[in-house]
């Protein structure tokens, strides 16, 4: 219990003192996770919507593969990126291993199936009447698909927040492809591992608090961005 209390105290001090190392690590965490989220969203939302709405050959198989990859172990994602970027790998010539770019690649691999799979599910859950209403009001197929995606946005935001939660807290992949290099590829999660190994439990807990605070703030921010979507999201009222 004392360790936790000390951790909370140390975390508060770290935030209060604006420790330059912590700021650098925090910014690196944000840069890596938000970049990965943005790229994965740009790829995953349209792919998920296409899988839900288009008659693609092997669609069921593709969906099952996507759902399987939603549970991809971070270390395995890291290993795949590592093998691709290592000097003997197909992308070795670009010398990206142990750089933030490699960490972003690994996190995209983790976030893409989550965003794609959950987008597909939420779009498929929409009723036929959304499409029918749009087309009977004169929408083209593309415009009707856009209407369905718009109606699915609560689910898509849930997909983004789920993916972000996974990315910001992820350690295995970034450790493997980033190497936890101070001043270069060290992020909050890898710092926690390092501090724990060094016996600085309180400092590790402190960094953990910063991590949670950041995750919470980003999720609140995303929800605020789509405030209108949640206006009617009062849920089922059980009386």
């Amino acid at each position, binding site marked *: 219990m004392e360790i936790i209390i000390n951790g909370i105290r140390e975390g508060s001090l770290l935030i209060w003192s604006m420790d330059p190392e912590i700021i650098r690590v925090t910014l690196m965490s944000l840069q890596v996770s938000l970049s990965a989220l943005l790229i994965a969203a740009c790829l995953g939302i349209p792919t998920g919507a296409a899988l839900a709405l288009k008659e693609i050959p092997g669609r069921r198989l593709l969906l099952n593969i996507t759902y399987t990859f939603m549970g991809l172990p971070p270390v395995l994602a890291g290993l795949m990126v590592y093998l691709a970027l290592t000097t003997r790998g197909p992308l070795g010539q670009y010398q990206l291993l142990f750089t933030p770019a490699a960490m972003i690649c690994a996190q995209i691999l983790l976030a893409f199936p989550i965003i794609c799979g959950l987008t597909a599910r939420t779009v498929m859950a929409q009723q036929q*009447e*959304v499409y029918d209403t749009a*087309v*009977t*009001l*004169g*929408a*083209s197929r593309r415009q009707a698909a856009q209407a369905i995606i718009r109606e699915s946005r609560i689910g898509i935001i849930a997909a983004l927040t789920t993916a972000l939660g996974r990315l910001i807290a992820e350690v295995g992949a970034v450790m493997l492809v980033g190497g936890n290099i101070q001043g270069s590829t060290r992020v909050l999660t890898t710092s926690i591992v390092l501090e724990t190994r060094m016996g600085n439990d309180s400092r590790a807990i402190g960094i953990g608090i910063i991590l949670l605070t950041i995750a919470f703030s980003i999720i609140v921010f995303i929800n605020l961005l789509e405030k*209108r979507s949640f206006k*009617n999201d009062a849920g089922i009222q059980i009386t």
Partner: protein
Amino acid sequence: MMPVFKLHNISKRYGQREVLHIDKLAIAERKIYSILGPNGSGKTTLMRIMALLTRNDTGTVQVLGEDIHWGKEQVLNLRRKMTMVTQTSFMFEGSVYSNVAYGLKVRGKKEKEIRPAVEKSLHLFGMSAFIGADARHLSGGERQKVAIARALALEPRVLFLDEPTANIDPRSAVEIERYVQFINREFGTTIILVTHNLFQARRLADEVFFLWDGKMIEKGSGQKLFEQAEDQRTRSFLTGETVF
């Protein structure tokens, strides 16, 4: 006068079951038609084929003089000349304004054209006060009026109504019926009404098609059908003997 729809030897199957088989059907402009029949008689399927929402398996469909070959452009152009109001009209998330404006937006209209059209349409149905209201928080009657305003803002040549008063109170239903007659009279819109409500069909329709088990077994003016139905099945339906 060119028929709005001409159907010839149309059929539709779902699995092994043939749900619709119409030998011949023509719909003239500026009239109100009612498609009547018990559950599962193929009313909605027939309407969806005419509205180009469902493909027929056999036969030919002609809409506004064009043979339908299901090309993307052709279907889109023809769909934009008709619209539909269903019994549980779906409202997109957002305001009443954004819902009524939707059809105009997808047609590429500018905001300065959209706003007056939306306001005019809502005004016609006494819904001006709801322009900024959340469309998902309307009562059943209000929702149907907004759905009709949304349809009318598009100035359609054909308006399909699928059980438009099924889920609303009698007073709102009477109001909706008046609006249907008004739209037909003032704008010359052809109206195709699918209903279970015999009295509504009789009150509104110039011509009634009676469907039974996917086939059109009788047609005629509302009065003729109700007073001198030739087919025993029609008579049993109209007198309420048919058990659904």
